[in-house]
C-alpha cells in the first residue's frame, strides 16, 4: 500500500521543487495552502507543523512541487523539527527555496538566510505579515535589502491573499544570496581542513557542512553517513579548533552571523517613534465600556463558581450569594481598571497586545483562566454534550417506532424568557422514516428489523445514531473552542502560566498544548507530544494523557452525571483528577531516566482569530 502511494507521487512529480523554509510561526503553512490549494493545519502556535506536507501547483514554467517544512530557527539542528528541515535541504538536488520571514522579525529571518547562502541554495524571500509590520510603525527598505542580498524580495499578507501572485512569479528568478561571512582565522582554518575531507556527493556547498560539523552537530554526521575514519579526523580538527576558544564553537559561529545580519540591517529597518494612534473611539469604548463589563463578569463568575464548588446551586442562588458575587465583580472592576489606567491607557500599545499581556499577567490571568475554562465547559459540556446531543439524538435521528414530534424553529430573545417561533418543523426523525420504510417489507418483530432498528441494540438505531449524535457534537465543539484558543494566541500564554506547576511533574510549559488537546481527543494529543524536546517529557505526557486527562467524550458522560448532583462532588472530582496527575507526574519524573528540558518559548502576538480557519480546522480534525 505504501509503495503504491510513493509511485503515484513519483509519476506526478513536478518539473522542479520549492521548499518553504522559515522560522516557526511565520505562516509557512498558510502560504503552502495558498500555493497548492491543499489544507494543512494552521495555527498561531509555534511548531504546529510536525510532518512534511507536499503538494503541487501549475505555474508559468510547468508543474511545481511544493514542500512545507517544520519551522526552524537555525539549520544547525537543535530539535527534531530543525533536523527534518535541514535534511530536506540536504537531500534533494534540484530545488529552489522560498524563504518566509516574519517581516517584524527580519533579523531572525536573515539569520537563516545566511545559512541558506552558505549552502549555496537559490532563494526567493517573502516578507510575510506585512500588515502587522505597518501597524507597529516599522518600515523596511526592501529595495535596498533586495539590492544588498541580490535575491527577489516580495511583501505578502498571506491571510489576506495579498502579494501571492508576485510571489509565485518571483520563484522564476531565484538567486543565491550575496552573503559572505568570515568567521575569523581559527575557525576558517578548521573549515578549510574539513572541506577537503568531505565526500564528493553532497548536494550543497561544503562550507555549510563544515560549519555544521564544527558546531558539534552530530545529527548531520548520521545524515551524511560519513566514513568512520574520516569522521575521526574531522573530530580532531573540530576539537583542536574548540580548544582555542572558551565559548562553544557553535556559539562563536552564530554570533558572527548575528553580527553580520545586524550590520546588514543598518539603514534598512527603522521604527517610527510616533506610532499610528489606534482608533480613538474604539479605544475609549474598550477602556470605558468593554473592559469594566468584562472584568465585572469575570469577578462575578469566579465568586459564583467558588460558591458552587464549596456548596451547591442552592447556596449559589441565594440573596447573600448575590451580594458576594456583586462584590467580587466590583473588586475585579476596580482592580483591573486601576491597572489599565495606570499602566496602559496613555501608552500607544495596541488593544490586542494589551489583552495579550493581561492573559499572562501574574494575578489577573488566573481569574481569566477560570472563566475561559468555564466558557469551554459551557460550550462543550452543556451546549455540545447536552443540548446538541439531545437535539440530534431525539429530533434528527429519533426512534424507529415512535414519532419524535418534530421541533420548533425559533429564536430566544436575550435577557427575557420570551422566544419567537418562526415555524414548526414536522420532521419525525430519520430512524422513524427508516422504520416506516422497513415495515413495508417486514414486521417489527422480524429478526432483521431487530438487528438494525431494534430499540435497544439495533445497529442503526443505536450504533450509528449514538456515534454521530453523541461523539460528533462534543468533539466538534471542543475543537471549535480549542481552535479559538490556539489561533488567538491564548495557548502559549497559558504555557507561561502553568510552567511552574508542570515543572513539578517533570514537564515544562510547552506541554500545555498536548494536555489541553487531550481534553478533546487523547489520541490526537498523543501525536502532538512530538513538539516536546526530550524523550522523557514525551513519555510522561503520554502517560498522563492516558491516565489522568479525560477526553471530551468522557467529560460529556461525567458532566451528565455530575450535573445532577451538588457542586461539591464536582470539585471533589476535579481535585482527585488534578491530584492524581500531580502525583503520577511527580513520581514518574523521579523514576524515568533522562532529562527534562528548559522552558524557552516564543510567545506569538495576540490576534483576532479568523473564523474561516477555525471552522476549516475543526472540520479536518473531527473528520
Amino acid at each position, binding site marked *: 500500500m505504501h509503495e503504491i502511494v510513493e509511485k503515484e507521487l513519483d509519476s506526478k512529480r513536478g518539473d522542479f521543487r520549492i521548499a518553504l523554509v522559515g522560522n516557526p510561526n511565520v505562516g509557512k503553512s498558510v502560504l503552502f495552502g495558498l500555493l497548492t490549494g491543499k489544507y494543512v493545519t494552521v495555527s498561531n502556535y509555534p511548531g504546529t507543523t510536525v510532518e512534511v506536507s507536499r503538494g503541487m501547483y501549475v505555474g508559468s514554467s510547468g508543474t511545481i512541487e511544493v514542500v512545507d517544512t517544520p519551522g526552524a530557527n537555525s539549520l544547525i539542528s537543535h530539535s527534531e523539527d530543525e533536523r527534518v528541515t535541514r535534511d530536506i535541504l540536504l537531500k534533494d538536488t534540484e530545488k529552489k527555496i522560498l524563504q518566509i520571514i516574519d517581516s517584524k522579525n527580519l533579523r531572525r529571518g536573515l*539569520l537563516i538566510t545566511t545559512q541558506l547562502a552558505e549552502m549555496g541554495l537559490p532563494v526567493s524571500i517573502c516578507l510575510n505579515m506585512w500588515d502587522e509590520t505597518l501597524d507597529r510603525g516599522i518600515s523596511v527598505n526592501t529595495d535596498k535589502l533586495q539590492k544588498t542580498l541580490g535575491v527577489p524580495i516580495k511583501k505578502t499578507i498571506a491571510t489576506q491573499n495579498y502579494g501571492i501572485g508576485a510571489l509565485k512569479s518571483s520563484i522564476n528568478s531565484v538567486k543565491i544570496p550575496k552573503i559572505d561571512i568570515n568567521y575569523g582565522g581559527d575557525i576558517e582554518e578548521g573549515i578549510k581542513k574539513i572541506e577537503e575531507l568531505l565526500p564528493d556527493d553532497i548536494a550543497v556547498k561544503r562550507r555549510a557542512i563544515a560549519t555544521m560539523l564544527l558546531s558539534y552537530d552530530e545529527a548531520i554526521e548520521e545524515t551524511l553517513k560519513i566514513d568512520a575514519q574520516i569522521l575521526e579526523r574531522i573530530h580532531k580538527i573540530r576539537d583542536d579548533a574548540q*580548544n582555542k576558544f572558551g565559548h562553544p564553537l*557553535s556559539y562563536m559561529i552564530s554570533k558572527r552571523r548575528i553580527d553580520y545580519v545586524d550590520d546588514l540591517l543598518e539603514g534598512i529597518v527603522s521604527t517610527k517613534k510616533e506610532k499610528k494612534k489606534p482608533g480613538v473611539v474604539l479605544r475609549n469604548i474598550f477602556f470605558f465600556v468593554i473592559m469594566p463589563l468584562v472584568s465585572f463578569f469575570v469577578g462575578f463568575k469566579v465568586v459564583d463558581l467558588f460558591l458552587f464548588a464549596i456548596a451547591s446551586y442552592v447556596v449559589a442562588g441565594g440573596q447573600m450569594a448575590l451580594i458576594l458575587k456583586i462584590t467580587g465583580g466590583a473588586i475585579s472592576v476596580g482592580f483591573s481598571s486601576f491597572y489599565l489606567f495606570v499602566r496602559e491607557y496613555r501608552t500607544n500599545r495596541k488593544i490586542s497586545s494589551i489583552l495579550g499581556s493581561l492573559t499572562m499577567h501574574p494575578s489577573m*490571568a488566573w481569574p481569566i483562566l477560570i472563566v475561559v475554562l468555564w466558557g469551554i465547559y459551557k460550550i462543550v459540556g452543556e451546549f455540545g454534550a447536552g443540548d446538541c446531543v439531545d437535539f440530534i439524538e431525539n429530533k434528527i435521528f429519533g426512534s424507529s417506532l415512535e414519532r419524535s414530534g418534530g421541533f420548533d424553529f425559533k429564536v430566544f430573545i436575550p435577557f427575557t424568557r420570551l422566544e419567537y417561533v418562526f415555524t414548526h418543523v414536522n420532521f419525525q426523525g430519520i430512524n422513524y422514516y427508516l422504520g416506516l420504510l422497513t415495515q413495508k417489507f417486514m414486521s417489527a418483530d422480524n429478526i432483521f428489523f431487530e438487528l438494525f432498528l431494534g430499540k435497544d441494540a439495533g445497529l442503526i438505531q443505536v450504533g450509528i445514531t449514538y456515534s454521530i449524535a453523541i461523539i460528533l457534537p462534543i468533539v466538534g465543539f471542543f475543537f471549535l473552542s480549542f481552535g479559538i484558543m490556539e489561533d488567538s494566541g491564548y495557548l502559549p500564554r497559558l504555557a507561561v*502560566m502553568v510552567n*511552574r506547576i508542570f515543572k513539578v511533574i517533570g514537564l515544562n510549559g510547552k506541554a500545555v498544548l498536548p494536555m489541553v488537546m487531550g481534553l478533546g481527543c487523547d489520541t490526537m494529543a498523543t501525536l502532538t507530544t512530538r513538539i516536546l524536546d526530550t524523550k522523557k517529557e514525551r513519555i510522561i505526557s503520554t502517560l498522563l494523557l492516558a491516565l489522568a486527562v479525560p477526553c471530551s467524550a468522557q467529560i460529556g458522560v461525567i458532566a451528565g452525571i455530575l450535573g445532577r448532583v451538588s457542586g461539591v462532588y464536582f470539585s471533589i472530582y476535579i481535585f482527585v483528577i488534578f491530584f492524581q496527575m500531580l502525583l503520577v507526574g511527580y513520581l514518574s519524573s523521579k523514576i524515568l531516566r533522562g532529562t527534562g528540558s528548559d*522552558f524557552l518559548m516564543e*510567545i506569538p502576538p495576540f490576534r483576532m482569530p479568523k473564523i474561516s480557519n477555525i471552522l476549516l480546522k475543526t472540520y479536518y480534525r473531527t473528520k
Partner: protein
Amino acid sequence: MADETQIEEMLECLWMVEEDNGKVERAVLEDKFGSEIADNVLRKMVEKRLINLHDSKVFLTETGRNRAKLIIRRHRLAERLLNDVLEIGDDAFEPSACQFEHFVNEEIIASICTLLGHPTVCPHGKQIPPGDCCLSAKKVLKPVVNPLSELRSGARAKIVYVTTKSHATLDRLSAIGVNPGLELIVHQKRPSIVIQFGETQLALDKDIAKDIFVRTIQS
C-alpha cells in the same frame, strides 16, 4: 620588585597551562620565558616554597596555588571590567588587564567583583576563581551587571554575557538571537519570565535567566 612581577607572571602562566592541559612541563615555561629567566625564577620560587619540581614537571604547592588563584582572579576580573563596563574592544583590553593585575590590592578587586555582580567566567569563557566576596556575596555595592532573573519587570537592559553550561540551551538562545549586545525589556517576571526584544516575546525559565547577565539601561 622586578622579581615579584616575574614570579607573578610565572604563577599565572603555570595556572593557565595547568588549567588547559592538567599538567605543566618545564619545557613549556622555558619556551615562553626563555630558559635562563625561567631557571632563575623557578629556583627562587622553589626557595619560597611556591612550587615543587619533579623531573621535567612543575607542580604548584598549596601556597603557590593560593597565590596564583588571586593573580588569575585579578586578571580575569580586570578583563571583565574593561570589556563589559568600559566597553574596550577585543584586542585592546588584554595588555591593560596584564598590567592591571599587578597593582590592584584585594580590597579593590573585591569591590570590582561586587560591582560586576560576581561574574564566574572571563570574556574568553574561562573560570574566574571565586573570592571571599563571591562566597558571602554581600551586596554592599549595587552591581552594574546582574543576572536577568534579578531585574524587575519593565526594566530595560542589554545582554553582557551568557554563561550557561548547557550547549544546547546556548545554541537555542543564539539561534533566536539572544546574544551579547541585544537590548531587551523584561515584560514580566511571574509566573514565568517573559522578555521582549524587537517584536519577539520570549518566555524562559528562571534557570536560563540566571545565566544571562545584563547591564540595565536607564531610559
